[in-house]
């Protein structure tokens, strides 16, 4: 069974100025950034992202991509982990300040009517999978079970989120909350308990690779959301490519062909594992 070609990019991106509605620390490294939703902005589908200009930047900064974590008529929320200078600056930006974004951008996690989905979110990789979960309608899939893993309890945000999904379970590498072990081990464990037709995953590359090997082994279609360094985010500059094989070997763009790909089309050994 394959869903190749069901991954779509229907995003109609615009360039907008938003306002910071909330900027809340969730843990030492994670924070929730809630922006006003521009009136004209089209509805972001789960999997899509916004390309955000680091504010107050006197120096040259490329925009930074962040998946949509949630969205309603008034707001767009992002789940951000402090990684480098850009995410450090953004962490300090105050309520009421303007933020310049381009979005929504990119492809979406597919609709899989009648299928039972197991979604694996590692770290901030939670964002698009959480969004799929809270946003989905009955016709999008049969069931949607989300496994959410992090290094330890302190990086898991079990409070303050709307976990009204078919079920969410947690894992931590150190066992401080939920299943002890990495999220793919957890998936293996879950898989043995219940039926799974499709796997979605998002997180660090090593996790995605492990998930892909697992999905291959168990013979289940697997859709994965990738990260890469981006410049235009419109599929124009060819900066953000990954090697794919679907018949021919070719580079496809994470920004525009992705970020969601059919895992079996990716040439995994070429993906950086750091």
């Amino acid at each position, binding site marked *: 069974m394959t869903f190749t070609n069901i991954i779509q990019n229907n995003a109609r*991106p615009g360039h907008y100025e938003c306002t910071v509605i909330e900027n809340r620390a969730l843990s030492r490294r994670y924070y929730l950034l809630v922006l006003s939703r521009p009136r004209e902005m089209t509805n972001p589908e789960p999997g899509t992202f916004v390309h955000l200009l680091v504010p107050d930047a006197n120096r*040259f*900064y490329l925009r930074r991509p962040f998946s949509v974590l949630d969205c309603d008529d008034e707001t767009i929320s992002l789940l951000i982990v402090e990684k480098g200078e850009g995410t450090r600056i953004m962490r300090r930006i105050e309520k009421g300040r303007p933020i310049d974004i381009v979005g929504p951008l990119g492809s979406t996690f597919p609709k899989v009517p009648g299928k039972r989905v197991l979604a694996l979110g590692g770290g901030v990789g939670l964002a698009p999978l959480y969004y799929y979960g809270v946003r989905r309608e009955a016709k999008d899939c049969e069931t949607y079970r989300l496994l959410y893993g992090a290094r330890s309890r302190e990086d898991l945000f079990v409070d303050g989120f709307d976990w009204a999904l078919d079920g969410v379970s947690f894992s931590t590498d150190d066992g401080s909350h939920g299943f002890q072990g990495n999220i793919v081990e957890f998936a293996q464990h879950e898989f043995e308990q219940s039926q799974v037709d499709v796997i979605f995953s998002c997180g660090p590359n090593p996790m995605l690779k492990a998930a892909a090997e697992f999905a291959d082994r168990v013979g289940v279609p697997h859709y994965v959301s990738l990260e*890469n*360094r981006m410049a235009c985010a419109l599929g*124009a*500059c060819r900066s953000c*490519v990954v090697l794919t094989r679907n018949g021919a070997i*070719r*580079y496809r763009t994470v920004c525009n062909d992705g970020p969601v790909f059919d895992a079996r089309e990716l040439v995994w050994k070429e993906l950086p594992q750091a």
Partner: protein
Amino acid sequence: MVTNNDISVTLGPVTFKNPVFIASGICGYGEEYSPLVPIEELGAVVTKTITVRSRLGNPPPRIHEVPTGALNSIGLENVGLEAYIRDKLPLLRDKRVGVIVSIAAEFEEEFVEVADKLAPLDGYKGLELNLSCPNVEEEALDHGRNPEFVERITRIVKERVPDRALLVKITPNVTDIGEVAKAAEAGGADGISAINTVVGVDFDLETGKPIFHRGSGGYSGPGILPIALQKVWEISRAVSIPIVGMGGISSVDDARKFFIAGATAIQVGTSLWVDPELTKNIIAALHEHPEYLGTGTAE
């Protein structure tokens, strides 16, 4: 209130409605940037450089940010001449977009082939010979350093597309850019495009290796502005054909400096990623202040 002074510019046989273009490699084959930039309002889009055969390009990472700009190592990934003519060029035909097709090749015969195939087509106003791509394996694709070659190729292509604007894009990575510009002028170019990226490198402190697999990359963005202005100014004193200036433009003021340095038109590259309104703002400023043009050639 934007006044609508005439700010059209003429490059050889062709007139463009304004002198603000998007640089090659930034807007893909033209269409890709249209969600953010109304491309029909531009003087022109210069499409991604194409080669006779399609190219896979370099392995990622292909883009790297530094505090003063960006390094890239795309490696001329492109769909190839045939697919370009079949799939890409027609997309823009109905849109009244000013298209300049950027091409690169290794050998004289390839340039002839490209020019012959493009000559009978419509849907584009100009050709830009990219004789200056630093990000590729083949030394031959960087032959813009050799004046005789530049002159010969320019002549060969111009003969075949006499009714289009032929721009020759030259590299800043030479001792005397004026000499190369003169060669293009002698070959019959309608304009000089300058500058392409400056060769640069950055290293990963963790691994002790260059960021890019190929090592060096092309440096663009604000950090190259003083160099680009210098090169355009040098060229303006060496030739009398128009110059299409670029390199590091991130504001209306930056664009104005290119006109002072002697440019007839400008292209915007890297900074469009940051500010998608940049071309629009420059066009509006020029409509309002047409005197910004023709301020050229500070001695």
